[in-house]
């Protein structure tokens, strides 16, 4: 079973990102579960969303304590101590950031994926919506689901600017930097 934790801020499309990735896994024949933790919905407040993936039906109806993978839509939320206490030792982290690998030195024990999803999305005319780009980068980092399954998911779930979102996901897939 694969367990993924998404972190971001209200308004960045964290929940939608986890649902779109869940849907992509569903399209690819997996059994996904997706749920979120949020309270007073407001822009800027930290939001956490979770995704579990397996080949078979998942019975767990509880939170994810120690994910295999963590995805940060906002690098200001990263606390290396927290990451170390949560993430499995062979875990992977994907971060939307303008910074370079050197800025994340305390996390170098993990597989690290960096992408400037925001800049890619702005270039595609998506303004501040960059959750589809981060998912493109995810497919490359994780090796699944296929980029095609993600494209189908985005096509079905994104409410507007489908072409730009698809292009952003593809570009982020290509531009991901892995350490």
């Amino acid at each position, binding site marked *: 079973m694969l367990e993924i934790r998404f972190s971001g801020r209200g308004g960045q499309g964290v929940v939608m990102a986890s649902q779109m990735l869940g849907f992509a896994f569903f399209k690819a024949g997996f*059994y996904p*579960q997706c749920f979120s933790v949020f*309270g007073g919905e407001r822009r800027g407040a930290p939001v956490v969303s979770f995704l579990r993936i397996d080949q078979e039906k998942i*019975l*767990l*109806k*509880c939170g994810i304590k120690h994910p295999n993978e963590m995805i940060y839509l906002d690098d200001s939320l990263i606390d290396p101590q927290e990451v170390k206490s949560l993430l499995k030792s062979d875990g992977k982290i994907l971060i939307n950031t303008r910074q370079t690998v050197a800025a994340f030195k305390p996390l170098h024990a993990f597989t690290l994926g960096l992408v400037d999803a925001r800049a890619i999305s702005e270039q595609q005319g998506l303004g501040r919506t960059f959750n589809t780009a981060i998912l493109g980068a995810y497919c490359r980092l994780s090796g699944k689901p296929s980029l095609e399954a993600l494209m189908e998911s985005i096509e079905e779930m994104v409410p507007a600017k489908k072409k730009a979102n698809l292009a952003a996901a593809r570009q982020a897939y290509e531009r991901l930097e892995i350490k």
Partner: protein
Amino acid sequence: MKQFITGNHSVAEAARRCRPGIVAAYPITPQTPIYEKLSEMEASGELGGIMMRMESEHSSMAACISASLTGARTFTATSSQGLALMHEMLHFASGARTAIVMACVNRTLALPWAFWSDQTDTLSQRDTGWMQIYVEHNQEALDSVIQAFRIAEQVLLPCMVVLEANFISHFMEPVDVPSQEDVDSFLPEVNLPRRFDIDNPSYVAGVVSQSQYRDFKQLSQEAMYVAQETAEKVDQEFGSFFGRSYGLVEAQDLADAELVLVTSATITSTARVALRQLREKDHKIGLVKIRLFRPFPTEHVRKLLDPVSKIAVIDRNISLGREGIFCAEVKAALCNSPVKKQIQGYLAGIGGTDVDVDLIQRIVLDALSRDAFLDRPIWMKEE
């Protein structure tokens, strides 16, 4: 067709396929997505019936009662404070022998203010004369709505389908959504008595004498016995038609059990994993899931638990000053059992706190090693 959807979405898909004539509702977190989805379906013409966007839950239930009395198939949904505000009308709905189906999304009752799963909101409506079905996952939520219409319209008692906040309501998982044709084959067209003529309106809530009142209540109690048989039959028929059935009470691994864990709703699902792992370590634990809470399936519970001497009950709810409500009901159901029992209540998940595999295993291990079973519940917390 399999879809990747939330529990709320599953409920709305089920309700639509049951072709309700009237949906009268008011939004409240975490039920709101049901309201929104049905609203969208009405706007696109998919709903077929009329959606009444009411000014409160009290009014929603009043509208549902009138609609059901005209003979319309009637659906609504609410949560927490909304359900509490409906309380007065809930008694009217069952007293008038309506066949309303209501999805209730469990959420904490104020104060303090919160948004998460806690069953005390629906369990505190226990004595309103409504049937209550507690579901474990999205698929069961969808299936139970369809079953509820069959049961309610056959016995003329309203029915709540109870799903938890978060781990069902906003929880996405694959759900088999049946076709309209299949639901039409399973659920006949509505054929309720038309007791309220909207062209010639009159008062339907008559004043009665003491003995008439008593006799009305006795008839309702007898209807509850019929409802239990009906619920079982409908579930079996649903099983042969759709290939999925749940029972009124479900048992797992009771034959060699040294202890039986009693659960309801989503905690059951996680408990299945927890008990499987314990079995690998040679702890033989049985599981009983209570799905139908009203009418309470006493004979079913007795048949399963009469031979058992050690029982632990998990409750995500509390009757303050007493204990977890499922625990109290299980104790009451077993008081005439021939085998002496030790029953320990555990409170876990209250306020929507996380109940994971580890917590469930700690409960089981505590009950296994315990010499004295307490009359008071034990509060279990995450480590």
